[in-house]
């Protein structure tokens, strides 16, 4: 039983924005896999909910004219990893999506909800970060498109204006075209778990040299981060075991891991280096490169 005082279930985005505009205090609920857990044991007591689940217009995954891949905020993870477009253009996002929860959770949990929940462990966040994704946010009378890095304000906090909804995730053509990628979710369990560390690596390889490398980390700092130093180092370098090891070492730079009972700082930092190396090596392989005597 949940202590819910009102529930709005608009049928259109416009209606949703109107309701939210009139009462920005409403708690937005998408798939509910985070919100309802928070409502247990008296959390968010007496909340009014604005449910987006009837907004089927926000479930669409489509390729826009300019090559931008648009993923509706209400697309559930099951739909994302089964989507032909995603599998063809950004398979790494499919990898991240299928690593989330279990089948039941993936059937209802949405990518927009995953991002707006603000958890640093969100499996989609580090991957979207590495994909240079943009977020399309709308209120009743405004729209803005911001990069991932401007969205995260702190642990569990995102920059949403009063009455503002995330409507779509935009992955520009440059974000994915010609890139090989790999997402590693490291968690104690292989399903139904939250990441101890998430590493998303994407690269474009030409003549066995890095044309471009992007690495996103989850749970390495209070918010998902990009490894810009490692990325800059890779630029133009030949793919060798030493290069990849150095990239992995540099991937530690943006990390601000901390110790908790779930994992120690030392272990997380060790994992960042080990898993960044593995993720980059696999991404290289998928991008057609060859990292000789890789482990």
């Amino acid at each position, binding site marked *: *039983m949940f202590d819910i005082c009102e529930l709005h279930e608009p049928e259109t985005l416009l209606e949703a924005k109107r309701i939210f505009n009139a009462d920005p205090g409403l708690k937005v609920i998408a798939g509910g896999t985070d919100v309802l857990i928070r409502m247990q044991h*008296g959390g968010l007591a007496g909340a009014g909910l604005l449910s987006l689940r009837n907004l089927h217009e926000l479930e669409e995954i489509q390729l826009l004219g300019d090559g931008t891949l648009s993923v509706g905020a209400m697309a559930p993870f099951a739909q994302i990893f089964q989507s032909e477009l995603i599998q063809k253009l950004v398979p790494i996002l499919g990898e991240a999506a299928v690593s989330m929860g279990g089948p039941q959770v993936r059937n209802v949990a949405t990518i927009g909800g995953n991002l707006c929940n603000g958890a640093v462990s969100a499996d989609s966040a580090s991957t979207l970060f590495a994909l240079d994704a943009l977020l399309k946010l709308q209120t009743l009378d405004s729209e803005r498109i911001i990069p991932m890095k401007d969205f995260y304000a702190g642990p569990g906090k995102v920059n949403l204006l009063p009455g503002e909804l995330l409507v779509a995730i935009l992955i520009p053509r440059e974000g994915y075209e010609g890139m090989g990628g790999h997402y590693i979710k490291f968690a104690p*369990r*292989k*399903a139904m778990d939250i990441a101890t560390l998430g590493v998303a690596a994407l690269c474009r390889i030409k003549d066995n040299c890095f044309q471009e490398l992007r690495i996103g980390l989850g749970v390495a700092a209070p918010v998902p981060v990009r490894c810009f130093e490692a990325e800059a180092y890779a630029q133009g370098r030949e793919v060798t075991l030493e290069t990849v090891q150095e990239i992995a*070492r540099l991937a530690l730079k943006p990390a601000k891991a901390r110790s908790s*009972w779930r994992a120690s700082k030392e272990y997380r930092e*060790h994992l960042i280096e080990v898993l960044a190396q593995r993720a980059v090596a696999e991404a290289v392989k998928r991008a057609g490169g060859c990292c000789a005597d890789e*482990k």
Partner: protein
Amino acid sequence: MDHKVVGKSTQRLDAVAKVTGRAQYTDDFFERDMLVGKVLRSPHAHAKVLRIDATKAKALPGVVAVITPADLPTIKFATAGHPWSLDPGHRDVEDRLILTDKARFVGDAIAAVVAEDLLTAEKALHLIEVEYEVLPHVLTAEDAMAEGAPVLHENRPGNIVSSFGVSFGDVEKDFEAADRIIEGDYETSIVQHCHIESMSAFAFVDSDGRVVVNSSTQIPHIVRRIVAQALGLSWGRVKVIKPFIGGGFGNKQDVVVEPLTAAMSLAAGGRPVRYCMTREEVFIDTRTRHGMKLHLKTAVSNEGVLQGIHMQVLSNTGAYASHGHSIAMSAGGKFRPLYNFRSIKYEPKTVYTNLPVAGAMRGYGTPQIFFALESHLDDIAREMNLDPVALRQKNLITVGHMDPLSKNVVRSFGVPQCLEKGLELIRWDEKRKAHKGQTGPRRRGLGMAAFAYASGTHPVALELAGARIVMNQDGSVTLQVGATEIGQGSDTVFGQITAETLGLPADMVHVVTTQDTDITPFDSGAYASRQTFVTGIAVRKAALEVREKVLAVAARRSGLSPAEMDIRDRQIVETSLGRVICSLADVAMDSYYDRILAAPITSDTSANVRINAMSYGATFVEVEVDLETGRVEVLELWNIHDSGTIINPKLAEGQVHGGVSMSLGAALLEQMLFDPVTGKPLNPNLLDYKLPTILDTPTINAAFVETFDAAGTFGSKSLGECPVISPAPAVRNAVLDATGVAFHKIPLYPQVVFEKFREVGLIPDRQAERSVQHV
């Protein structure tokens, strides 16, 4: 022996009901005007309750009653699900009240609310004002035994619940004379059963003024007694009903929610009240598996002959005794009839601490003991450069062995064959060779562990089981047992035993699965892997009695003596000729409607089983260890059993799958964590408590070495708990084989494994190396 039904994988009787959702569990039943109960729990690990003010809570609309310790009888009662003992010196520890005026762990039940709905009940909890005097607390057994430690229960000033040990032979003499003495310390963590169905009950006062408790329990007849004792009622005034159960694993071999649920109904004027725990409550305030610390010291000859062993066990039982006093003792009995030690000294100490209560859990202390013993044997083998399997093979007991303390006799002993089978199935020698000289970050290894277990509790406790059979007009029979089907498949097995005895197909035995203490025969319930062995004997006895009565009626019809006839495939036949005399249905119709001789064929009997049978087995496993992340992956696993005759192979395999999964969880992932300062549980939910999912579970291979044990029905022995004993040490030993690193504590959680590898220099400390280079 040529059996028609026994030994066949007949379909479980409840299969269709369960997969179609027709099976009704405690929460599926509704009574009119049903209320909801909720519990107020202590935020402190140890605190006296000075004052409770429920005025505001009582004033909340929808609240029917608020119960505090002052509203309840002050009768301390024991919760452990054991048969009552007429000998007061042999009873369980009576240390519990329904609600307590002194909190002994974070989550201890202080007050309860009965309300019209759950939200109102939860709101009311927040309105109850409690004033505590916070006391110092202890979380480890060592701290609890230290001089000046806070005392949890006044009548146990040293916090020691029990320290009753046993010994035979002269272990000191064996140590003096030994070629080698090898010692080791081992530790297991606190884990939980994680049955799918929560702890749940509802209670009401019926039209006769009796208290009716419906509960998800393994022990309905014991629940009846303890509810009556806790509330100061005459035992006959309580009736307990057990519908379908979604798992218990020992947690429901304890009386946890029933006395409080009954008290809630009484406080609400007898209206039905449901009390169903949340998963978080199940973690905090039901039972756990004892975390144990074990010190093993073994005398061994240069040839690898095990001579004497001294085993010291420190068992953390948490805030109340529950089964604590009995578990360390019982587990000390199970490991003895396996290796041929000439002296054993077993010294357990079970200690109160301010943690959730530890109680019965599948294996009842034995998994902890065998984790230590089987790890220790591999450590011995390694230190003495012996083959670990050969070390075990060299030291096994033989058939005819009598335990010098329990006097239980080993009548069947399939361990040598289990070991042979394991070596062959996992291709031990071939893989050993292949693993030689491994380098790189992923290493493979092989490990094994053996175990011994018992069938029921004889000679420690009463083993009484009831069975009742009624033959119906069509020759089918209806079987009632007092034993409890909790998912393990016991009803199906009882049906098979009955069918085999009466010449019936399995589907002509109808087993009543719902237990109702008013109606079902007496039996102490599902625990100690006793059902097939103990209740099976009662069922066989009842079926034989029915058979005798059937043949007596047939004798009347045929003029033959009963000894000249048999029941085969629903027909009465003249044995020597194979000639059909009449159908079983003809006999049944006579028994109901013969104008002169009618007397329905029934049996209502019980068996007081005063014998035991040791069950055995081993696990063989191959693992791969990721040195860099500390993750251990089980690649191949064989869980092999000597459980005597296997009555239903499919169900036996199911037991193996469940038990192995439970043991692998304890070996690799599961542990309940507590804040070391406050004693608050850190992970009381299924996200943070890492119960393995199906993706974390390797293919589990079951194999059986079928011995015949004269003590058991159709030669059968126990199996229920056996599969949970040996996988964890086998995995630990495989990691040792793969990496050369001996772990002494489970679970082998990735971070812990990583830290150990770094400590022993198996993986470089990349950051430290670099900082050295920079200097």
